[in-house]
């Protein structure tokens, strides 16, 4: 479902005299439907960079990235937009939303973008918010005012409200307490059971042991400075 072949990444810093930083070369991995793969490696080794390239957020400077039948590397913007809408989900560590939009709408938005009716989208958003223990009295408020853990759970709710066939998870259990962590791990397990291909970064080792089938160490893809 997700295939990365011989991928390269470099950054050219024009504001710093045109310095070229080659950060990655020869990155290859694949994730099959129903499988959860963990990216491991020290901080700065390139885990997030690789995730961002698969998401289409960073350009790929060499090699191929494929998600489903879309070649992400070199795709037209509209192909990536369509891919993100229906096929590829992403739970980032940061919540980026229009200020003052109620939490319920933030979570329902991916469904509305898919053309699902508002009533159904809101109902499903309410279900998943209940599941991640965001109390109903907060649903009408903007998540920008929430605590870190609450924002993280709104992100999770948004990332699991639609059953994306491929999912990227960046530290989904960070800043969560024990019971919420368990909820997230069961959401991941359910996604796997329905055939989602999941690639994630988990610093939480026991979480990784519980849901991941394999690990890929990105250290071998890093280019020594």
């Amino acid at each position, binding site marked *: 479902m997700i295939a990365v072949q011989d991928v390269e990444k470099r*950054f*050219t*810093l*024009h*504001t710093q005299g045109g310095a070229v930083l080659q950060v990655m070369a020869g990155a290859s991995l694949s994730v099959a439907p129903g499988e959860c793969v963990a990216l491991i490696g020290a901080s700065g080794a390139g885990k997030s960079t690789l995730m*961002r390239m698969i998401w*289409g*957020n*960073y*350009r790929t400077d060499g090699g191929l990235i494929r998600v489903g039948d879309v070649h992400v590397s070199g795709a037209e*913007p*509209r*192909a*990536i*937009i*369509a891919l993100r809408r229906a096929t590829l989900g992403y739970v980032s560590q940061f919540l*980026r*939303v*229009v*200020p*003052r*939009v109620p939490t319920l709408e933030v979570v329902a938005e991916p469904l*509305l*973008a898919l053309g699902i009716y508002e009533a159904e989208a809101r109902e499903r958003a309410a279900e998943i918010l209940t599941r991640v223990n965001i109390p109903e009295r907060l649903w009408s408020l903007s998540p920008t005012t929430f605590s870190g853990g609450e924002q993280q759970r709104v992100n999770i709710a948004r990332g699991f409200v639609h059953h994306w066939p491929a999912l990227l998870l960046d530290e989904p259990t960070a800043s969560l307490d024990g019971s919420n962590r368990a909820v997230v791990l069961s959401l991941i397990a359910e996604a796997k059971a329905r055939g989602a291909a999941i690639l994630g970064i988990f610093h939480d080792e026991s979480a990784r042991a519980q849901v991941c089938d394999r690990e890929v160490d990105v250290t071998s893809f890093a280019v020594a400075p």
Partner: protein
Amino acid sequence: MSATPLLTVDGIGKSYGARIGCADVSFDLWPGEVMGIVGESGSGKSTLLGCLAGHLTPDTGHVIFDTTADGPRDVLAMSEPERRMLARTDWAFVHQNPRDGLRMGVSAGGNVGERLMAVGARHYGQIRDQATEWLGRVEINADRIDDKPRQFSGGMQQRLQIARNLVTGPRLVFMDEPTGGLDVSVQARLLDLLRGLVRRMGLSAVIVTHDLAVVRLLADRLVVMKDGRIVEQGLTDQVLDDPQHPYTQLLVSSVLQV
């Protein structure tokens, strides 16, 4: 995915004497897409918007629009009445200053109703009902329908201008700094409103702004202009997070973080 772009811009150029307004601008806009155009003052983004929307006549290039009535047509080759009809039906233009897009001496309901009458609506009751409905959609109370825009706040005027423009169900909206000159709190509400309308009506939009935060939240795609030319274009978050061109890198690194 649709096979025909809604708008194809091919080699648009416009000079003011020896000075370049914009040059060699080409892109496709697909149905349902929101495209942002950013660049500093004088980069040619407003000239480009004017050329696309038919307010200015470009020196070179073609603007092909997939019209509801006749399919793809070169807008620049249309007669003036045809282009005016297009501007009232398939197109809409939201000005930065609501005073440029509203009739300040006409009531709020009249401002919205006038657009309907321009495309042939004649039944007073229906026009008023539709105007009331649209005021509601842009969050203006129905009891303000007979007030004139000059009695409204800047944010309300901007929302009224949006209602006036969208009441005829356009497919493409041009916006010139739609949130410029508004308080940040009012901006956020307007952004949310625009996003909802774009999604519900399946609108495509071309938005000119210098505010990178606005394009990040509103635009699917981004075009970066400098000295009248496109220096970089792509998916909005990719252009902002992994900018390739020296000018885009400078632009992104110059934004103050809050």
